[in-house]
Structure formats: C-alpha cells, structure tokens
C-alpha cells in the first residue's frame, strides 16, 4: 500500500510538542534482541528513530485499534502494544523506569483518534446542554473508557467493549499485572453521526500552521463571546 511517507516524516519531526517521547527498548521480533530507539508519540502515531537527533523515523506504529498491556518479559518495565487479527504483530517495548513505563502505557492507551473523538463529542454535548440553559449533568462515565482502577491493562478499545470487559472481568484495584482476560478482537468503532458537525470551523483558510491554529481558536472564542454579548454591554471582540 502506498503511504505519504514524506508527510509522515514531516509530522513526526515538526516543532509542536509531542504527546510523549523518550527512549524505549523495542524487541526486533519474537526471538530477536531489543534495540534502543527514540520514540515520539504524536496523535495516533508512534514514531521511532535511531536516536533523538535523527531527522527521519526508522518506522511508525499506527496505534488505531490497539490495546496496551503489561507483559511478563525478561526485560524490566516491559509492556506490549497488541493488535487484533490472525497474523497481527505484537510490539514489545521496555522503558527505563517504572515511571516512564506507566507514563507510556497511559499515553498510548489514550492515543487513538476514536478515543479523542468520543471525548470531543461528549464535551460538545455538555456545552450544548449548558448553552441551552440547563446544567450539564455529566453523562455517567460509562460513555467513556473507565478511569484507571489500578489494573494492569489499559484498553484503547471503544468504550462499549471496555465497559463490557470491565463488567465481565472482576478486577479489584491493585490487581496483579496481567490479570485481564486475553485480548478479543475489538468491535468496530461506532459510526459517526453524519449530521453532527464537529465545530464551526468549516472553511478556515489555511496559512502557515501555528498561525492557522491560533487563528482558529481566536475566531471561535470571539464568535462565542459575541453570541453571549449582553444588550447593554458590548461583546468583546
């Protein structure tokens, strides 16, 4: 399959702060050695470089649909990025400290586009509710992946699956690592409502990157403030 690799490399090395970065050991294959690589997480893409100064990634792991688990491995602070499917690869990675490992597992579990979309929709719903005058009672957290409960497995699966898994697998806080049931193929992500706009940003013009995003946010804020302007006072521009 062709892929716009140059654009990927550009995305990997752009100036905006990464969602997580650091050295990890990556297992080459089932019986292969670990290689120390510089990892950069951006969005739902986990890039890895020869070292922190490299301009071009060695590779990328597309994280959509993965689950992240702790694993029993010879290497300390090891965890796995696992995909569903018959011949799917499992990426075994190892951090250099307990804190780094936990940081990575948390960050990777929440890295999917699907997860982000769910959170955005929930906030949209709450904002709409508040705007239309009512209080916004937060929907019961069943709608989103459960908070950390001390279990070793954090799932990037869609919330229906995560909630179902949490319900069927009794897992008290502080459970020992690896106590979750084996990975099942995640269900298909929920279909997006065709009529739900993502926001008022339908035809923002594209200038250079930072200016555009900054402009976007300023426009939205000003639109919102104008819509809230009181008759006797002027709205802020």
């Amino acid at each position, binding site marked *: 399959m062709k892929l716009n690799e140059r654009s990927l490399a550009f995305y990997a090395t752009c100036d905006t702060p990464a969602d997580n970065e650091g050295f990890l050991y990556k297992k080459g294959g089932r019986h292969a050695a670990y290689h120390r690589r510089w990892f950069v997480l951006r969005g739902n893409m986990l890039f890895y470089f020869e070292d922190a100064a490299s301009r071009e990634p060695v590779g990328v792991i597309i994280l959509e649909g993965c689950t992240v688990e702790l694993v029993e491995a010879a290497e300390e602070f090891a965890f796995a990025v696992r995909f569903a499917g018959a011949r799917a690869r499992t990426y075994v990675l190892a951090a250099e400290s307990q804190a780094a490992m936990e940081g990575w597992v948390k960050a990777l579990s929440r890295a999917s586009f699907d997860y982000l979309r769910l959170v955005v929709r929930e906030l949209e719903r709450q904002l709409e509710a508040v705007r239309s005058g009512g209080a916004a009672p937060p929907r019961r957290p069943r709608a989103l992946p459960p908070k950390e409960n001390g279990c070793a497995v954090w799932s990037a699966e869609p919330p229906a699956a995560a909630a179902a898994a949490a319900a069927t697998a009794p897992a008290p806080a502080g459970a020992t690592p690896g106590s979750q049931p084996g990975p099942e193929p995640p269900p298909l992500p929920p279909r997006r409502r065709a009529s739900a706009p993502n926001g008022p940003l339908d035809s923002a013009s*594209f200038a250079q990157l930072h200016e555009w995003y900054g402009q976007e946010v300023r426009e939205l804020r000003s639109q919102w403030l104008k819509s809230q302007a009181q008759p006797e006072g002027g709205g802020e521009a």
Partner: protein
Amino acid sequence: MRYNEKELQALSRQPAEMAAELGMRGPKKGSVVKRRLVKLVVNFLFYFRTDEAEPVGALLLEHCRITQEEPSGFSISFLEDPERKYHFECCSEEQCQEWMGALRRASYEFMRRSLIFYRNELQKMTGKDPLEQFGISGEARFQLSGLKA
C-alpha cells in the same frame, strides 16, 4: 519508513466517515485521472481501485491543506510541499463541499484543538474542568499550553 501495514489494511475496512467513487489524479506531472473508491477513516484517506478489496494507497491527513479546484473538485497538499497536490473530482459542487468539510475536520490535530476549545469554554461557563470526571485532566495532550500562539 517501516509501518504496520496489516493494521492499516484492517483500518481501511472499518466503517468510514465518507466513502464515494471519485476521480483521482496523483501529484506527479503528467498523471491522469483515474476512478477510485475513496474512503475516509479516522485521519486516513484510503483509495481503492473500484473492484479491489485492498487499498492502492493511503494518505495520512495531518498538516494538510484542502483547496477547492475548478470545476467541482478539490486538492489535498501537505505542509512540507504545498505544490505537490493530490487532485479529486466530484460529481457535484455539493459533494465537493461535503468532502472538503469532512477532510478539514479529519485530522487528529483538528480534533485536539476542538477538545481544548470545548474544555476551555465549559470551564469558563461552569467553573469545572469537564475532563476531571474522566480522569484525563492531567494529560499533556489536552493542555491549552500545547497550542502555540
């Protein structure tokens, strides 16, 4: 660059935001228009030969620019090389606008900005951080400071 192609193929089989047969022309000089099944899934645009199950290719839609092209088409180009354009031809102006809107909203980075905006608005209006109930208020990726001025 190595990448997990099997997972990308699996992703191409997921339910799509948008899918349609469009005319597509690659960025190389002298390339011709071909009919392709074009499918938007998360932040990837897949394109298939109309009778094949596996995609010919995929475009990651981060840091890209969507531009209207006459008559009823649009192009996708990327920040690092704005002159290199993937052209798409729609069957109507309406379809074209629909695709352009969907593609502009399809990046992870756009979603992130939306989240930060909604979070900020809700915090101002209710005095509470809406992400706290989900246990993610501390996540680096959702901080306002992540947006550069």
